[in-house]
């Protein structure tokens, strides 16, 4: 029965092909996830031991002394990222709306899109120097505000391009439905198109936020760093990445320990911020929506 044999053989080949493909997919997934897990585990291993109440409540102790914490850097990162988001998110979303809804195919839109892509590729140290000469030098002092501006500008291209792409994914018939009801175009863009695209737009904002939250270079010439507690936008301020950088470079073991703790806290803060925004924005979503 040659025919049955051929059939069995083909079946076996199919079984083999199926499992080989599955194996490759699983391997690829592991390779993608492994570094992330490894970094996280290593950070917990090295940093968790230095996390205590003092770490979150105290400012750094002078070199050589034990104790002290990174409270000033945590607050500083919060302030600088707050300024950055206030600047980067609205401008970025506004730019994305322009590209997708109003400037579509126009000359200006192409220029804006190209500029955003170039801006995305500007090395962060260059951004630091630019803000240094544009804000720090004229003001004659380093400041949390200057750091926030540097991070905010770095957020703009990511937010703009994801907003544009997400808006373009909103089906045309949804826009027509709004216009057909006698809703003015601007209203339709804000309340219908942007709202429909909002999960993607928010993801874009979170991506941009997480990316700049770990930036060190643009803060070196702008926020500078500060060993003392500061809540002011017009003074130099410590931030987690910059503090980690300084401590990791120091010869002091106690400071090394704090640097590991700082790195862990930085990652945790990003994870918490991203999860919080997701949670808050996903509430009120209806059964069966999209």
């Amino acid at each position, binding site marked *: 029965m040659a025919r049955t044999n051929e059939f069995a053989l083909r079946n076996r080949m199919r079984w083999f092909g199926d499992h080989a493909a599955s194996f490759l997919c699983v391997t690829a997934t592991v390779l993608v996830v492994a570094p992330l897990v490894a970094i996280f585990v290593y950070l917990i291993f090295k940093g968790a031991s230095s996390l205590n109440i003092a770490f979150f409540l105290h400012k750094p102790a002078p070199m050589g002394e034990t104790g002290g914490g990174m409270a000033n850097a945590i607050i500083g990162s919060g302030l600088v990222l707050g300024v950055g988001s206030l600047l980067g998110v609205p401008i970025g979303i506004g730019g994305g709306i322009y590209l997708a809804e109003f400037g579509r195919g126009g000359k200006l839109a192409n220029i804006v899109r190209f500029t955003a892509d170039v801006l995305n590729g500007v090395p962060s140290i260059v951004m630091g120097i630019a803000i240094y000469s544009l804000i720090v030098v004229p003001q004659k002092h380093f400041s949390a505000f200057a750091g926030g501006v540097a991070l905010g500008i770095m957020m703009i291209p990511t937010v703009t391009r994801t907003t544009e792409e997400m808006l373009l994914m909103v089906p045309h018939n949804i826009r027509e439905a709004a216009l*057909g009801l006698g809703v003015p175009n601007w209203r339709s863009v804000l309340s*219908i198109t942007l709202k429909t695209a909002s999960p993607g737009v928010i993801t874009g904002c979170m991506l941009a936020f997480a990316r700049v939250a770990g930036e060190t270079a643009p803060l070196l010439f702008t926020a500078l760093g500060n060993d003392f507690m500061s809540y002011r936008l017009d003074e130099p301020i410590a931030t987690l990445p910059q503090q980690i950088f300084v401590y990791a470079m120091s010869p002091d073991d106690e400071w090394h320990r704090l640097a590991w703790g700082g790195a862990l806290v930085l990652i945790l803060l990003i994870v918490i911020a991203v999860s919080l925004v997701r949670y808050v924005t996903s509430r009120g979503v209806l*059964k069966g929506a999209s």
Partner: protein
Amino acid sequence: MGVSIEVKDLNAWYGTTHTLQDINLNIPANHATALIGPSGCGKSTFVRCLNRMHETNPVARVTGSVQIGGLDIYEDASPVEIRRRVGMVFQRPNPFPTMSIYDNVASGLKLNGYRNRHELDEIVERSLKHSALWDEVKDELKKKSGASLSGGQQQRLCIARALAVDPEVLLMDEPASALDPVSTAKIEDLIFQLKSQYTIVIVTHNMQQAARVAENTGFFLMGKMIEFDSTHKIFTNPSDKRTEDYITGRFG
């Protein structure tokens, strides 16, 4: 109440394509008027000219005049005003996916700044009853998304949404072509009831549908209106040879 529509020398283009050529037509108030014809004959473009949706396409252009209830819609009013008076139901159901059933129906009013809660509740209920959807959704108005309904329900939701802004004319562009026969029958029943209050213009590929719901029927072919008459006359004794060929299935 519905109003009549007078179309004079209407021409429309998409880019360089002359989609509608010298259309002249009077559509009576409080009647259902069907537009039939093969795909690409211009009937959809025609209804989109009646609420100025045609011009939302950047390459589109239109000349001629359309009077709706005595108002010249291209001279005397903004597109936004016109679209509030001339509602539209599209071929594919297009509820707003992020909104609840309630918000979908209320959207036309809410997005235009209408805020009176009590009246909104009433309008939503009345519109959903009008579109024969109320009994199926009344318990989950604010909990369920409009997108979670079945296709036929979604289309009736879209009709309710169009009715909620209290238009005088209702344009329907193949409203049942994406629906199963049961849902189609429901939509047709609806059209029958609605025409006491609205002037209805319905584009359809389905000639039985035109015969069932419409008093008058217009036949479009290649951008021209070939014949406009009572539905009975069009389907039993058309005056133009091309109309006869089309309805007897010789082409299209």
